[in-house]
């Protein structure tokens, strides 16, 4: 028997496979399709202080090896999330861990969400989205060193729960931003969010996406995600969550060897909701074949 469990943020994850924010709703949407509680965990759609309707259509389209999206952080807002979504997570997930993805446009926005949720049940901690490229100023925290430091400090001051910062790859040196998070009290880092991109309808001579630009995700960005994960994991001591283009166990293993303790699957879930359960099974099979008894031994085991 291979042991897929891994200890991160002081708790046990039954396996390292999570669903990425924005690609699994609030968990409930997948409940009839896959055994959500068998996953390592899920990360919720971003929660902002107020509800958001999101961007005008078209919001998604296919790109080579991936997709573009500009959802515009459409979400039910803090109050309804706490009232309607958290209870489902609390009642239905006993083994899978839940991170709440938090977004905002000012330190105060983030503080409001974290303060408004911290005493509730049904989740483990936060993933702070400082990297959504789809809203005005949305990349501010993720690309500005001082603001990021200030944000992480502010959130650290008001919660003892695991505080994970999700970094954008859209910077010259992601290591610098990883350092800032570590120095200011974050418990972990997620790498990576999407790349800014654009697709043009050459007949209409208009952008395909209503918001003009959007974020690129999927297998196309996997080598970039593995690189960012390796760079960050080699630099800081914090646990890293690897994200970007994971489609199967081999891909997940690339991230773990590069230094990720956990991984998240996003876009590939749209292609096939069984991607996550099959990745878990596949990790088991690879470990068995390679004679690895404890998957966690492979974290950062790359010889480079």
């Amino acid at each position, binding site marked *: 028997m291979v042991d897929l469990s891994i200890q991160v943020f002081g708790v046990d994850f039954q396996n390292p496979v999570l669903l990425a924010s924005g690609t699994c709703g609030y968990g409930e949407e997948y409940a009839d399709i896959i055994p959500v509680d068998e996953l390592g965990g899920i990360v919720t759609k971003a929660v902002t202080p107020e509800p958001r309707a999101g*961007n005008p259509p078209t919001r998604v389209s296919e790109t080579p090896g991936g997709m573009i999206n500009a959802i515009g952080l459409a979400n039910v807002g803090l109050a309804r999330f706490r009232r309607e979504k958290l209870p489902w997570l609390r009642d239905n997930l006993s083994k899978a861990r839940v991170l709440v993805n938090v977004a905002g446009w000012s330190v105060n926005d983030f503080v409001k969400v974290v303060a408004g949720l911290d005493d509730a049940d049904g989740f483990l901690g936060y993933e702070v989205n400082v990297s959504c490229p789809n809203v005005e100023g949305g990349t501010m925290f993720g690309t500005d060193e001082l603001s990021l430091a200030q944000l992480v400090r502010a959130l650290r001051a008001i919660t003892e729960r695991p505080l994970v910062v999700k970094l954008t790859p859209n910077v010259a040196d992601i290591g610098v931003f990883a350092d800032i998070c570590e120095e200011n009290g974050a418990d972990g880092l997620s790498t990576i969010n999407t790349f800014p991109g654009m697709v043009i309808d050459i007949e209409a001579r208009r952008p395909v996406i209503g918001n003009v630009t959007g974020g690129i995700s999927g297998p196309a960005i996997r080598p970039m995600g593995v690189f960012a994960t390796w760079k960050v994991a080699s630099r800081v001591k914090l646990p890293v969550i690897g994200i970007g283009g994971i489609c199967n166990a081999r891909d997940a293993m690339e991230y773990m060897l590069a230094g990720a303790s956990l991984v998240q699957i996003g876009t590939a879930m749209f292609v096939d909701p069984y991607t996550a359960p099959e990745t878990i099974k596949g990790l088991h099979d690879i470990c068995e074949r390679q004679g690895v008894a404890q998957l966690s031994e492979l974290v950062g085991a790359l010889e480079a």
Partner: protein
Amino acid sequence: MRERVAEETYWLELTAPEIAAQAAPGQFVMVGFGASAWGIPFLPRPNSVAAVRGEHIGLLIRVYGAGSRRLTALKPGEEALVLGPLGTHFELNGARRILCVAGGVGLAPFLLLPAWPPLVSCGAEVRLLYGERQAAAVFDPGKLREISGLEAEIWTEDGSLGSHGRVTDGVDLNGVDLVLTCGPTPMLKAVRALAVEAGVACQLAVEEHMACGVGTCIGCAIETVDPETGEAGYSLVCSDGPVFPAERLRW
């Protein structure tokens, strides 16, 4: 099974027992090829369920871009990922005389209508208008009858088959108590305008680009209005739709 039924248009039958047992007219399936085969198409594509025959479902697909090209190239025995049935379906609401208006492959959901148990049991009368640009694009009427039992009134824009003109020219709402429509957005808007003007109930099956098909990506938003509060907002075509009552659409 794959059969060419008109210019660049194919009839596809897939074995999908659970979907076949549940699908209702207007509902769709996501058809794709798996995330590890990240070629073209990468994302699955929504397609209306156009028929149910035992354990099989029928799809009516017109080649448009990479996704539909790949789907219509499926060979017997080859596997695809099919998720469904998804979304809302048409609602009869006790109607007695139903007018269906189809443009192009918007024909698909109506082919499923006659065999649908709620319709069979209520015995409502169904009239189907079906428009295409020209004769070559028209789904073979014999095959149409064979699959659905429907007799379509065909309109072509160039008059090369059936009546000459746009399918909306054939819309006569006299005595009709429900209009169902599916096709290109300009046609849907025109049909909706006629129904609203005549005060006849109308349901529209709409399209938007999709990623997940199940409400998780929030990608397939369409502008809607709450008919009661009048409040504007977005609804999801995949889970709040694809079938919307006319009064819900902010058009």
